C-alpha cells in the first residue's frame, strides 16, 4: 500500500482497515490479520500497526479476544455509523473542492444530478 508521508501512518492504517470493513473485505465478526501480517503486508512498523489497532479497539470497531486476536465488531449500529463517517469525510472533501470551484451549496444537488444523468457509464 502507498502511504502519504505527511499524514501519520497509524491514521492511514486505520483508514485502510475502516475501508476494508465498510467494503466488506472484513465483514462483521471476522478476525483481522495478525499485527505482524499487517505490518509486512503494508510494509510498516509493528509498533505503528499496534497503535492503529489500539485506537480502533478504543472506538469499539475492533474487539480483542484474549489469545485469539482482533475481530470486527458485530454491532451493526456502530458499523453503520462508521460507514456514515467515511461517507461524510468524502462528502466534506467534495463539497470543499466544489466551493473552491465557485459552486455554492444550494447548487450542489442540481449539478450532481445533471452529472449522473449525463454520464451513466460512470461505474
Amino acid at each position: 500500500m502507498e502511504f502519504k508521508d505527511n499524514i501519520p501512518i497509524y491514521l492511514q492504517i486505520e483508514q485502510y482497515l475502516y475501508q476494508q470493513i465498510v467494503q466488506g473485505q472484513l465483514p462483521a465478526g471476522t478476525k483481522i490479520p495478525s499485527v505482524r501480517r499487517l505490518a509486512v503486508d503494508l510494509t510498516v512498523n509493528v509498533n505503528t500497526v499496534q497503535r492503529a489497532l489500539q485506537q480502533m479497539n478504543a472506538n469499539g470497531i475492533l474487539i480483542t479476544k484474549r489469545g485469539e486476536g482482533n475481530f470486527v465488531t458485530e454491532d451493526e449500529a456502530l458499523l453503520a455509523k462508521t460507514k456514515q463517517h467515511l461517507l461524510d469525510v468524502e462528502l466534506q472533501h467534495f463539497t470543499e473542492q466544489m466551493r473552491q470551484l465557485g459552486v455554492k451549496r444550494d447548487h450542489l444537488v442540481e449539478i450532481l444530478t445533471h452529472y449522473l444523468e449525463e454520464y451513466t457509464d460512470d461505474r
Partner: protein
Amino acid sequence: MTASLSIKHVNYHKNRQPILTDVNLTVATGKIVALLGANGAGKTSLMRVIAGLAKNYRGEVAVAGKTKLAQRKNALAFNENLQGFSKSEKLATILSFYAAVYPDFDEERFNQLQEFMDLDLNQRLGQLSRGTKAKLVIALTFSRQVSLYLLDEPFSGIDVMSRKKIINSILLWKGEDATILLSDHFVDEIAQVLDEVAIIKERTILCHVPADQIRERGETVSAYYEAQYDEDI
C-alpha cells in the same frame, strides 16, 4: 523499563580532531530508529562508539543497561562489512565462523533468513552482487539474539528489490523487544517503517523525534530532515 540504548555526554576525538561532541541519545526498547545525517556528520563514528569499536571516548554508553564493554558487546549486533574474510571464502564457512564466535547465534533463524533472502551457501564471497552481500550481512546480523541491532547504512548502493527484501526481513524477524538503530543519509524509502528519527549534524545529535509526530504537523519526514540542514545550503 530500561532503555535499550542510552548515550550520555559522549565526546570523541581522533588524531586531535573532534569527531563527536556532547552526544546524548536515549532509545526505548523495541523501536526502529533512523540515524540520519550527511556524509561526515558522524553517523559511522557514533555507531562504532556504541559498538565498542571506537575507543577512548569520554561519556557514558549503555546498551540494555550494560555499560561495561564486554557485557555491552554481548547485548548488541553490528552489521559488519565482512572485510575480514577473503573473497574466496564460501558463505558456508562464514556461517560456521559466526556460529562459533557468537554464543547467541541462532542457526535455525539463519536458515529461515537464508531461505527468505534466497542465499546460496555454496557461493563464494567474491561472487556476490552488492545486493546479495547486503542480504547476507543482514541474515548474519539478525541471526544473533541481542537487544540492540546497529545497522550502519544497510541499504547503501543496493537495488530496490534487495532493499525491499531487507526491509521485509526486518519486519518479519525483529522481536518485540529488539531495538534497531540504522543509519542512512537518505530517509524517503524507509520513512514508513520508522518509529523515530535522530538527526546528526556537525558531530552531535540535533534532534530526536517520533516520525508520526512530524507527520501530525502535516510535514513529511524527509522535508523535516532536509530543513535541519537547510541553513547550510
